[in-house]
């Protein structure tokens, strides 16, 4: 269990560093989704299931959808059908 915690903590930090640094906004949002999914797993490791469920539904779900829609409106989706 401890090893899983260490892996998750390190990968959360790596995602947090990587997210704002990548050039394409689409990649940024996907890395941010990974970040909040890992946070959801961390919450469940900390024995608080309420948080895990809310963070999963909100962090990975809603915030990312809003980011994608904003990117669509800002015409920042390079290299996709929508270009």
């Amino acid at each position, binding site marked *: 269990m401890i090893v899983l915690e260490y892996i998750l903590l390190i990968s959360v930090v790596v995602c947090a560093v990587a997210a704002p640094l990548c050039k394409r906004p689409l990649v940024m949002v996907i890395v941010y989704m990974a970040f909040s999914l890992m946070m959801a797993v961390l919450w469940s490791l900390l024995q*608080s*299931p*309420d948080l895990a*469920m*809310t963070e999963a*539904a*909100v962090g990975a*779900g*809603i915030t990312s*959808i*809003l980011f994608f*829609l*904003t990117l669509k*409106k800002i015409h920042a989706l390079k290299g996709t059908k929508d270009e």
Partner: protein
Amino acid sequence: MSNGPEKQDWRTRLVSWVDGDREPKDQSLFVMEQRHRRRFLPTEEEHERREKTRLHRFFNWYPVAAVFIALTLVTVLLGTVLQMPLFGQESNPINNEVAEHYLEHGEEDTGSSNAVTAMILSYRGFDTLGESCVLFLAVTSVMMLLLKDGEDEDGKLARRSAREADQEEHGDIILKRTAWVLTPFIFLFAIYVLLNGETSPGGGFSGGTILGAGLILFSSAFGQRNVRVIMDRKTYSFIRTFGLMLYALLYGAYIFFGANGLPNYLAGMALLIDLAVGLVVACTIYGFYALFSTGEI
């Protein structure tokens, strides 16, 4: 009689000094930058240059100061975190009689065995009411920004959204099929989580979010028009206001009875409040999606 011209001269001199037309003999501390009476605005390029330098100077020292502040803050926080009570110990000061009370008496005080829901809805319900107001405010402000039925500046916007609307119509088959299969189960699970807030992890917030996510999946797969059959602008704002009003009035009555020592008439209201919070959160989530994608509910 009164020395009109001399007084006049003194007054105009004061006024012209104030307007900075003529520098007084000693160069006063501050000079209004409007040099000549005739020209209203300072010369364009001089003003431009000053703005440019001010902006340039701002963007020079700002990153350095920001990095410095961030680093000092992180080092200070690291120092304090290592001094704070250690992680996961029973004897930490945070696990005091308040937490014990919530765990032990949570069941009979509030009727919900999930201590977190008991704390959110009954013990510290005022924060959750503030919380629902934050959600209500967020949707209202996003409506202020993105709602399209206001005067549309140019037709281009209308044409582009029309194109988006019909583009949405024939969503690809995979999304339609999976949505057709998944949506009932998502709604079922959301209602389960919403209603079983007391006995299992979940409650207003998570249930409402899942309900909102289900609505989004349905609307993105089958197009906004089908969703508008059951949830058009009127019913949407009705449900949203009804949910928060129900919560505010219920919780207001609960506080009034509790604070004044009246017997607690509203024993079973935790479930009702959960439902109200769930409604508010679901409407907020769906409202964000609808406003962001097509600009109207």
